[in-house]
């Protein structure tokens, strides 16, 4: 295998915008807590088109990271379909899985824990290239240099160890590693949450640039609504393992229809939208989720139906889906 055989994303113009790259259908991710199984993701549908960025928001414990890990094939107990470029990869193995893994890159939350403390930056970025095989050491060295340049890492940093660098620099290394095999899809799991505001802005800008240059599709997972708004084309909101709402970014922020989305937006400090409908209480345990709609225990609009029938997503406006029996009608 040579460099030319590496999967490359579609050249500009050929990949019709709107062709789905990733379709997640009925995804369920299960864990065990003290012998008791529970579902961190309880039946989730998502679609991500080529070159598009989908923001996935929700509070801790809503299962958003499990979605990313399931897509990255890191979760052992998963059911449902994960269709990537027309093929269900949820249960593939061997060669097909290897090829899939090369087309998907992943970046994690903790910049320092994401990198092996015993290896140099150069080794870390080279690892996926070595795993892909077929590259000689000079080709790898050249590609590492290219990647470092792409993510804005000074070449002098390549011989450092992770603990000798700042969080922002470590996150650049993670991004370079994820991009090494020219993926079509980048999974970003809370990648800027651990960074200070000024560094966070640098990394967000970097992601925006790379997305343009590489024509990447991105699944951008974050609890920070403002960052998600900045980067995403579409946004999906999760609560306790289920999808609440899914809409184009401006539509979602301007006309949130799910009571949870509304509450989430109202809770953001410094948000000038006056809204006193703050949520009370805490997230219920995923071990014993509420019956019917999982949000009903904290929902200001909950009625009897909500406890009985779990809502299914329905389209209320073009491309705007809400899983709620009583969505807030905000037609202007």
């Amino acid at each position, binding site marked *: 295998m040579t460099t030319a055989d590496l999967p490359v994303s579609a050249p500009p113009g050929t990949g019709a915008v709107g062709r789905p790259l990733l379709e997640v259908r009925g995804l369920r991710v299960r864990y065990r807590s003290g012998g008791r199984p529970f579902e961190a993701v309880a039946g989730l549908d998502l679609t991500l088109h080529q070159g598009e960025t989908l923001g996935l928001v929700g509070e801790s414990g809503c299962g958003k990271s499990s979605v990313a890990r399931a897509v990255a094939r890191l979760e052992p107990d998963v059911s449902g379909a994960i269709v990537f470029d027309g093929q269900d990869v949820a249960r593939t193995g061997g060669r097909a899985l290897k090829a899939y893994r090369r087309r998907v890159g992943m970046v994690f939350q903790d910049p320092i824990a994401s990198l092996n403390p015993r290896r140099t930056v150069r080794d870390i970025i080279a690892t996926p290239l070595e795993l892909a095989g077929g590259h000689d050491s000079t080709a790898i060295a050249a590609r590492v240099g290219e990647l470092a340049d792409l993510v804005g890492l000074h070449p002098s940093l390549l011989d450092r160890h992770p603990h000798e660098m700042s969080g922002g620099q470590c996150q650049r290394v993670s991004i370079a590693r994820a991009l090494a095999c020219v993926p079509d899809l980048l999974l970003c799991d809370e990648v800027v949450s651990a960074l200070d505001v*000024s560094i966070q802005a640098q990394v*967000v*800008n970097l992601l925006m640039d790379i997305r343009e240059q590489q024509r990447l599709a991105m699944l951008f997972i974050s609890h920070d609504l403002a960052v998600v*708004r900045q980067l995403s084309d579409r946004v999906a909101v999760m609560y306790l393992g289920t999808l609440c709402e899914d809409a184009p970014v401006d539509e979602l922020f301007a006309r949130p229809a799910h009571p949870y989305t509304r509450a*989430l937006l109202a*809770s953001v400090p*410094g948000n*000038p939208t006056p809204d006193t409908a*703050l949520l009370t209480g*805490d997230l219920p345990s995923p071990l014993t989720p509420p019956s019917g709609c999982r949000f009903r225990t904290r929902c200001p609009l909950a009625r009897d139906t909500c406890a009985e029938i779990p809502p299914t997503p329905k389209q209320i406006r073009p491309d705007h889906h809400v899983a709620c029996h009583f969505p807030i009608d905000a037609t202007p």
Partner: protein
Amino acid sequence: MNHDAPSPSAAEPLLNLRGYTVHLNSPRGTVRAVDGVDVAVARGRTLAVVGESGSGKSVLCRSLLGLLPDAAVALRAGTAHFDGVDLTALGERELRDVRGRRVGMVFQDPMTALNPVLPVWRQIALPLKRHLGLRGRAAKARAVELLDSVGIPDPARRADQYPLQLSGGMRQRVMIALALSCDPELLIADEPTTALDVTVQAQILRLLDRLRAERDMAVILISHDLGVVADHSDDVMVMYAGRQAELGPTASVLAAPRMPYTRALLDAAPTLHGPRGQHLAAIGGQPPDMSRLLSGCAFADRCPRVQDRCRTEVPAMTRPPGSAHEAACWNPVPPPRPGGGTVTGISAARRESSRT
């Protein structure tokens, strides 16, 4: 007791720092963690301390109560008058009577700041016994009362539980109950909502506002989130690399920042409104190495308005003309033209109206 105490103003400050400086020992030499801070906070008011990690905000608060290990502190200078008494002059024994009794403290992560092997009420009972002499049933009754006052439902049952059995928001409420157990006059909240989800954060911040008003407490709210600061403080002190960058009424500082760092901080944060999809105004470079002695302004290397003077002379806190607050800058950002304010997304003006 009237030695070098500042002249009493309209509201006598409860806590008054003058030239407060803390240097720490590190493997790479002395770190100027806090460098010449002048700030005051009065009863019933909230002072926000804002800065990125390493700006010295936590060190400032911990060192006030003598909570840093002796071996870590290389130098402590300046004064810190609390109700007329200089805290820097107190010994460990005297400080122990101040801690918990007169100054309460809330930490960032309630999961690690609460003892995992003690039931909640026992943890609250310890300071009650130490400072108020309450024991046994009286201590437990008081603990349940405190849990109730911070909005924990079914407090009698929760009192017997362990932190692990509580949700994140409830744990932080327990931490607040613990800090308030002996009716302190000053509450230091060190990033109290950073470890919490956004919907829970809103609840906790409102709780802190309510308790401050009810008890006429002074509050120091440490945060890295300008949105939190805008909604929940009267005054704000922006810190950068251990030094004060800007200080004054929150509304004024956030609406018309004069120090370029504050301006950049506001611009770098993405917002829920306003333009999106374009590059964020990131601040280039990294914060300075704090073990190095900086000859000029600490922000000079990253500052878009840098001048020669900035690299050679340390700017003092002064009130630039036309400003309602102080900033430490040789070349301050001009104030926004009236009516044509820059879009920051954080509406400080809203707070002025909403609080009264």
